[in-house]
């Protein structure tokens, strides 16, 4: 267990920022521009992997850029959870970029340079959040992420996009400024520290009322996590192009929200405080539980593929929050594992949704009857992705849900077990019939069915890669569990 002073975390963040600059400069030469992204992504991945052995040994990599306020600095620290999250975001950046090329280039979409530029900035910000050593740095990158993704959401620049973008910002900026920021300042004013620490920052005997208020402010303040009732920005943001929905609204942005909540719960409040104060734990679990069930129910009613996926995402995010709220070892481990598992599953689904739209112009589930026979590759990938989200073997989702279920039994909140199970059933209910009908029903829309054909390789291959990832995660879950284990070791004393 060493703390290593290292500049590598900063390099990791800077790589994609530099790439963003190059993208802006090379805008006129699309091939050069996109190769830039790949080079950056590979370098970034390499740097991250170089940190992995150390982190798995229990080392922490730290770097303090500058002190901005007394006792609050712009500082980075890489631990297992951060590294895991960064790895997931960066490794998924590569297939998404391939997919974007496949989707945007044939359409001759406008402002591709802006698109890739903002994308790179968003990745930088997400990694920045992952590596933040304190709440302040985290908040900084959290806001940067909101702002850099706004142009991506409004990419189409039509009325729908503007409306969606407006909602996106109102919710994300509004909650973070009105709730998270004051909560953070109050924490600073009460404790004089914002560093994430084992056991939290609050002194013993801090009034429970204050803690409850702060907790609620944080939970809702990080609205990227999609806790109800601050969730509607996510379905609204589905106006974005498919790759944006895929990487950002299944992985980077929403997971940043959840990640921030994990950090606050473990590093600011502390797992012990959570476990020993029933009211805190209950609030987290109840809020997450309600969101979980309600979101799954709403997902059932959605006909638009992307909306259904969006509500599914909202539900799955609450799995993670609920897992942390349980405040048990296996609960937290399960929650940690659920980040990569769900990421791979959901991105597969979104990529498929994009591919489906490109292949046969279908946006709605009801138009999909029988399409599976026309586009078998895409639908197979979709099937694997949905298995992963539901949590069935042989996909990674099974592993994380296993730990979550175990965690719920060990905790004082056994009702969570029922919630998990119900929700998983609901997941199955909104995914499987869809897949079944796609393969085995007769076509509902003959004209579309006739014209449909498998989309170009550049769009299908990324989906297949991530689908493969879902399966591989199941077999290599042991490696991932090491990350979760290290994180639990760091933050849970008992």
């Amino acid at each position: 267990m060493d703390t290593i002073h290292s500049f590598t975390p900063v390099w990791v963040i800077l790589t994609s920022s530099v790439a963003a600059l190059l993208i802006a400069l090379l805008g006129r030469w699309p091939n050069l521009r996109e190769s830039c992204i790949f080079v950056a992504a590979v370098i970034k991945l390499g740097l991250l992997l170089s940190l992995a052995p150390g982190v798995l040994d229990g080392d922490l990599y730290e770097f303090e850029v500058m002190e901005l306020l007394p006792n609050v600095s712009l500082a980075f620290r890489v631990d297992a959870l951060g590294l895991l999250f960064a790895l997931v975001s960066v490794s998924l950046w590569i297939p998404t970029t391939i997919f974007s090329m496949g989707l945007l280039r044939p359409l001759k979409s406008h402002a591709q340079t802006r698109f890739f530029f903002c994308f790179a900035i968003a990745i930088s910000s997400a990694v920045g959040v992952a590596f933040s050593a304190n709440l302040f740095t985290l908040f900084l990158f959290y806001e940067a992420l909101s702002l850099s993704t706004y142009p991506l959401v409004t990419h189409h620049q039509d009325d729908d996009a503007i409306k969606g973008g407006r909602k996106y910002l109102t919710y994300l900026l509004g909650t973070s400024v009105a709730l998270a920021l004051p909560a953070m300042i109050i924490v600073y004013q009460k404790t004089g520290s914002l560093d994430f620490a084992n056991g939290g920052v609050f002194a013993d005997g801090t009034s429970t009322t204050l803690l409850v208020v702060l907790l609620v402010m944080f939970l809702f303040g990080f609205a990227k996590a999609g806790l109800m009732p601050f969730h509607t920005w996510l379905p609204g943001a589905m106006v974005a192009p498919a790759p944006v929905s895929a990487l950002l609204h299944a992985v980077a942005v929403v997971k940043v929200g959840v990640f921030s909540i994990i950090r606050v719960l473990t590093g600011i409040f502390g797992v012990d405080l959570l476990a020993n104060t029933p009211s805190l734990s209950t609030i987290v679990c109840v809020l997450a539980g309600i969101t979980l069930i309600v979101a799954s129910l709403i997902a059932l009613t959605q006909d638009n593929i992307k909306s259904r996926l969006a509500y599914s995402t909202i539900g799955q995010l609450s799995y993670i929050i609920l897992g942390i709220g349980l405040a048990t070892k296996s609960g937290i481990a399960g929650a940690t594992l659920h980040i990569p598992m769900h990421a791979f599953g959901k991105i597969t689904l979104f990529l498929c949704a994009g591919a489906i739209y490109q292949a046969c112009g279908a946006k709605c589930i009801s138009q999909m009857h029988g399409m599976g026979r026309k586009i078998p590759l895409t639908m197979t990938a979709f099937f694997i992705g949905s298995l992963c989200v539901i949590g069935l073997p042989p996909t990674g989702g099974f592993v994380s849900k296993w730990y979550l279920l175990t965690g719920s039994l060990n905790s004082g909140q056994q009702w969570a077990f029922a919630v998990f199970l119900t929700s998983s059933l609901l997941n199955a209910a909104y995914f499987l019939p869809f897949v079944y009908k796609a393969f085995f029903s007769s076509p509902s829309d003959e004209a579309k069915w006739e014209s449909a054909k498998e989309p170009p390789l550049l769009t299908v291959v990324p989906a297949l890669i991530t689908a493969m990832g879902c399966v591989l995660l199941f077999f290599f879950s042991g490696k991932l569990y090491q990350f979760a284990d290290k994180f639990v070791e760091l933050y849970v004393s008992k």
Partner: protein
Amino acid sequence: MTGQLPIIVILGPLLAAILAAFTAWLRPKLSYPLVVLGLAISFTAALKLVFIVADEGAKIYWLGNWGNQNHEFVVGIQITVDNLNTLLLTTVSGIALLTALYAKRLVETELAGRQRYFYALLSLLVTGLLGISITGDIFNLYVFLEIAALSSYALIAYGKGRAYMASFNYLIMGTMGACLYLLGVGFVFIKHGTLNIDNLSGIIPTLDPSQALFVGFVLILLGVWVKMAFFPFHGWLPNAYTHAPTASAAVLAPLATKVAVYAMLRIMFTVYSLDYINGLTGIQPIVLYLSTAAIVMGSFFSLTQTNLKMIACYFIISEIGYMVGGAWLANRPGLTGAMYHLVADAAMTSALFMAIGCIVYRLGQAQLDDLKGVFFKMPVTMAAFVVTMAALIGVPPTCGFFSKWYLIQGAAEAGVWHFVAALLLSSLVKAIILFRIIEIGYNRVAHPAIEGNPAIPRNEAPLSMLIPTVAMTLGLIALGLATNTLVNTIIVNAVPAALTQ
């Protein structure tokens, strides 16, 4: 020579203005470089003073050398440079210098053929503002107040049309403010017989039941409130700054109100004292409510406006609420926030008005509806504008974030939750306005990069305006990153000592 630095800060623009009044007739082209030179001298001196004062403590300068007469009281006029005002002096002269560089093209087009005395008046305005910030004599402060006010009436009236009435209203309100201030000075003088701030701070008892001193305090306070457009005395400001020529507004808007806030801080914490303020248990909550009201009303009215300049003016009104509120929280983070915001807000407002000036220069007006496609026409300007608005909203790591940070911390410490709520509300309102502008300027237009849509010609503001704008905008970020240094080396020494122990 360093001993003379305090007066050089004032003399730079003062002498430049006097000489410019000659060259206005003899060599009209010389007026502008003269004024820029004067401001540059002033800025250099002020900057040097920041370091000297941070190292060695306050510097006192006696005009006419009437200070060391072995008399208990200073018989002449004294100017004082201490940690409370070095930063402000630098800000005022720096922003004035940058704005003067920026304003040349604007003045040539907006005031074509009428600019004879413009630069002289501009320089005199800056003299007045610097004087208010540097003087150590409460009557001298009044004279500087009037110098700044008279030159700003003229600078505003340059706008023609509705500017005359706006300027006249400002004149009536401004004179009223100055008179209330002077009357307050009389009430202080009648009890203590001296006008020197340092002497007064020594003899005004901290817990004095004297009604005269109290009335004097309230009068002075009302006077500076009128000058700074604090709610409910804000009526004159939006019209005055909106109808003024953009070049005038770019100097007035960031500086004039801030300097009045400084005067309030000086009176509150140097002439009177922290204990005195804390003793005013009846007044403190009222002022805090007024601050909240200022922020809320400013935000609300900025939402209802359709003119960019008008919106910016209501921002100023709400920002004034920040500073007054912060000062009246009378605790360490609150005061730190107010003092830091003094500098930060001057920089932000300056950047905002510079960006608006660039837009006005090209588009001829600043109605929101006219902004369609402006992001494609003037990408650099709009980038600066967006960063500035982000600073006003309080997005880290710009300076706006840190002032808000301290203010909220102060309010939380004092338990004044309505002030916290108002601060957050104002952030949100500014965010709404920013995105409304982005929508209109960026999204409400057929994207020129899509085939078939007409290309929007790039029509950026001239470089002489663009460079200062961008520099100021980058300054906002630099200021934000320098927060800790500023707070720990300078502002900490400006906050009353009782709070920092």
